[in-house]
């Protein structure tokens, strides 16, 4: 177990280095674009589509598509 845990742990840079680190504006933009596109697609669009289905399986449908 100790060996397994050791392989899990990869030394990271110091917290001071972390505090000094900043992402460029382009990196920030890339992060937000893919994240928010995914969030809007899955939570809003597909969430609305899915909510119309007669879940759970086996339950009688009370409305039409």
């Amino acid at each position, binding site marked *: 177990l100790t060996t397994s845990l050791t392989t899990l742990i990869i030394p990271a840079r110091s917290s001071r280095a972390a505090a000094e680190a900043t992402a*460029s504006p382009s990196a920030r933009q890339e992060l937000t674009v893919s994240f928010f596109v995914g969030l809007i697609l899955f939570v809003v669009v597909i969430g609305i589509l899915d909510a119309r289905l007669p879940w759970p399986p086996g339950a009688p449908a009370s409305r039409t598509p």
Partner: protein
Amino acid sequence: VIAGHFGLAAAAKARAPRVPLWMLMLATQWLDVVFVPLYLLGVERLEPIAGMKPGGYGASMIHADYTHSLVGAALLSAAFGAVAAIRHGRRSGAILALVSMSHWVLDLVVHRGDMPILPAGVGHLPRLGLGLWRYPVASAALELAIVLVGAGMYWRAARAAARRDPAWLGWANVCGASVLVAGALTLGLDVFGS
């Protein structure tokens, strides 16, 4: 990881059909949803990896020392599940908390040893991460596999839900295909959009 989390939530919907899909999708990204404002405020940071394109797929050390610490993620997940349980019941709340915590587990596989155990890295305990992002093709392939399996499980469950009324089968196919396409699009944006 973005698309992989959504794929995992789609698989969870197949196993827990009473939980609303949009809540599973929100739960699976909950840690990142909280991360974004902290990132914009400068509380949590991305550190570009030397020699890699800034903003590229998996090309950052992620210093999300509150949202992506083991204890912080557990607290955020428990809070999400507790609030969800008020409306959707304890079982759904517990499922949503587990899905939220799955975000940390999946991130553990790819992060480069930047995930602390305690919030803010208190105690200077070892930071965790298997570092699969060192091999972008492998990590992208893993995400794609999770998306394909999750979308497949969801699609099958959606068709099963619609089976009693053939009028719903078309709608189930629309939903299943949408999960698949949205997963591929999100993964493509993450990997090739940078």
